[in-house]
């Protein structure tokens, strides 16, 4: 049985009753109601647990093979299309990459009800190098929330598209731009910041949904007060137990003032547990990519966070990759699920990290329960020490131990991780996680670089290629048992699976591929491909589903781009290898072209 906040109907009623009382932080009854109705797709993940599971079952294992294209919509934008539209009571809200256009479509006629196109300084485009993605909108109480690239967070009237309020979330002149989707939890819209490659100091911020007024802002690195950490009550996993972090837990792990340009950005997907009143998310890489320039654990970059939604106060924090030497951003989504972990019913948080380990934590206190490789080729660490929570680094693949100007070869995974932003799904029936993954390794050469405000601050040259001695492809779609830390099934793909997965009560699991195929498989046996359709461009968007007038629809954005789609895999030692297997993603051009569009499928009448 699926236990999640929106099935607890009495709470929804209570939320409405409390709404009349001033001064109380209220559950957002509107979003609760909308997401509880499987006909809608009212949040980016479908719910606040980040599960990406739908109760709809009209499209099922028996008939999904008959699906046809119902309608399509071009965004007219050429860059990578991440995220998915929202569907709320007969209206669909779509977004595009920069310039971040927003449309409201009437689902009956597919007529454009309104369109919003912000004017943004084009100077932010190159700061989003190398792609200008946007991961989608949020909705609550008649407002659509857009986190623009130029860091402006905007609330639009859902009926008219008119701007209700705008707030500046970061300074693009310093490279602080945005690609993340805003998330509405309670009466707040939560957003983060990008720019780890520009030396931006990351944070998570909460704004009042009605006024746009900032309620709290918690930094990822720096003094306790600015991170909203209480040295006595904020805990972390150490010595096999949950213990207070103690004073200056971040400052002590940086040399001098380096934390000020230390990264820890927050461009992923956030989740929320109403019962705990906590928001969960991850922080990205420390800046620069050259570890020699920033000795120490660089806390709290590369970490999982649990913050109080009302105050931002940090309940617990856990660092996955102390002193990152590989750009293993920790921003991937935190999926909340109530599962058996090693036989014990647990309020779990499950996270598939860029570093190649999948973590299962007790989300009530941050205790580490499981940390195992979810791609067997992961080699930079042998294992995670369950007592200290630290990965045991293999010297051969340590870019810090090998030092600057040395090209460390054969590191698995590559910087784009065993999984990047492409979100996994959790299916409450099979109790498995459906994970789109990368199967890519790299050579990594760090070098000295100087910080200049508003300029790239990277300091490493990378080359990436398919995992050697494997199936030759650059991705796998896997199912994962988070209670034991084991891969259950693995389905090989030619390219990285950069699209977010969906599971449904109809027994299917669906995902997109970089070549542009939407694929639906039997969720009990993922090697059984039940449906395959080539959309107009490569897919890095997330599969979603909704129902309109008794008919179930299933859709996905296509529009190649993002890190994988752009083709990061140059940087070869030998030029003659240039266009061969080593330049893996270059081959994509044989399969697909740029161009953003939505394809919506349904069963024939």
């Amino acid at each position, binding site marked *: 049985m699926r236990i999640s906040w929106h099935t607890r109907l009495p709470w929804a009623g209570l939320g409405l009753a409390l709404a009349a009382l001033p001064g109380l932080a209220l559950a957002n009854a509107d979003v609760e109601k909308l997401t509880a109705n499987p006909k809608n797709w009212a949040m980016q993940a479908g719910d606040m647990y980040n599960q990406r599971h739908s109760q709809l079952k009209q499209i099922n294992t028996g008939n999904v093979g008959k699906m046809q294209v119902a309608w399509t919509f071009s965004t007219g934008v050429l860059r990578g299309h991440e995220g998915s539209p929202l569907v709320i009571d007969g209206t669909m809200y779509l977004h595009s990459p920069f310039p971040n256009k927003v449309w409201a479509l009437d689902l009956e006629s597919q007529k454009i009800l309104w369109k919003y196109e912000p004017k943004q300084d*084009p*100077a932010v*485009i*190159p*700061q989003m*190098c*190398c*792609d*200008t993605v946007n991961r989608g909108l949020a909705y609550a109480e008649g407002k659509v929330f857009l986190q623009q690239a130029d860091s402006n967070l905007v609330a639009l009237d859902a009926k008219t598209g008119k701007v209700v309020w705008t707030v500046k979330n970061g300074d693009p002149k310093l490279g602080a731009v945005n690609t993340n989707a805003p998330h509405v939890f309670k009466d707040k819209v939560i957003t983060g910041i990008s720019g780890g*490659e520009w030396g931006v100091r990351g944070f998570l911020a909460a704004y009042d949904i009605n006024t746009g007024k900032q309620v709290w802002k918690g930094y990822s690195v720096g003094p306790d007060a600015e991170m909203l950490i209480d040295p006595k009550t904020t805990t972390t996993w150490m010595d096999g137990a949950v213990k207070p972090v103690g004073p200056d837990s971040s400052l002590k792990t940086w040399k001098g003032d380096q934390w000020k340009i230390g990264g820890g950005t927050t461009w992923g997907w956030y989740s929320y547990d109403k019962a705990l009143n906590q928001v969960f998310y991850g922080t990205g890489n420390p800046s620069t990519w050259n570890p020699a320039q920033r000795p120490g654990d660089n806390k709290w970059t590369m970490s999982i966070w649990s913050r109080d939604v009302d105050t931002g106060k940090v309940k617990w924090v856990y660092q996955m990759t102390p002193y990152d030497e590989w750009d293993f951003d920790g921003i991937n989504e935190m999926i909340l699920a109530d599962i058996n972990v090693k036989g014990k019913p647990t309020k779990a948080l499950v996270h598939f990290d860029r570093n190649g380990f999948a973590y299962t934590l007790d989300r009530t206190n941050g205790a580490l329960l499981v940390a195992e490789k979810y791609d067997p080729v992961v080699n930079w660490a042998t294992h995670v020490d369950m007592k200290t929570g630290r990965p045991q680094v293999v010297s051969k693949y340590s870019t810090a131990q090998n030092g600057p100007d040395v090209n460390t070869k054969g590191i698995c995974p590559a910087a784009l991780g065993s999984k990047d932003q492409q979100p996994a799904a959790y299916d409450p029936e099979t109790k498995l996680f459906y994970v789109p993954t990368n199967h890519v390794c790299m050579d990594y050469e760090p*070098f000295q*670089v*100087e910080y*200049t405000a*508003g*300029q*790239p*601050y*990277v*300091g490493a*040259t*990378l*080359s990436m290629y398919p995992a050697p001695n494997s199936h030759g492809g650059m991705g796998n779609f896997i199912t994962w048992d988070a209670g034991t830390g084991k891969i259950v099934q693995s389905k090989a793909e030619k390219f990285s699976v950069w699209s977010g997965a969906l599971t449904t009560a109809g027994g299917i699991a669906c995902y997109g591929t970089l070549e542009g195929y939407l694929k639906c498989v039997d969720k009990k046996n993922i090697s059984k491909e039940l449906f395959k359709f080539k959309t107009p461009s490569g897919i890095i968007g997330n599969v979603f589903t909704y129902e309109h007038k008794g008919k179930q629809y299933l859709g996905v954005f296509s529009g190649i781009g993002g890190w994988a789609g*752009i*083709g*990061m895999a*140059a*940087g*070869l*030692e*030998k*030029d003659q290898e*240039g266009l061969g297997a080593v330049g893996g993603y270059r081959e994509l051009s044989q399969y697909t072209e740029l161009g953003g569009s939505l394809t919506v499928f349904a069963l024939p009448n």
Partner: protein
Amino acid sequence: MLRKLLLGVVLFAAGASYGQDQTPLYTVVDGYKVDPFTMKGFRTWRAAACDRCHGANQEGLVGPSLVNSLKTLSKADFVKTVRDGRLDKGMQSFGSSQQVMDNIDALYAYLKGRSDGAITRAKVEPIPQ
């Protein structure tokens, strides 16, 4: 003396390129050993993270191939593009980056060497003294 002469022969073989004042734009040995000035250009290329868009081999990613572009782009246009950017196309302005602007001639020399095919791989090393 002999060493200098030999070097000259190698340079000729590699097709060294000359600027307007007839001093070499870059000098290269074995396709990847370069003079200190060109070396500075390579270090600038790396520090400014140009590879994020143009690829670690200058063959292009989201940005165009510089191996191709520098066959037709004049020095003046190159400097203008780096200084002012082409914002709508995603090329940022490096006008405020002292490191890039101080070394723009060296950066040009390095990239021109790549484009000419004289520098045969992206990663170069100093000519041993």
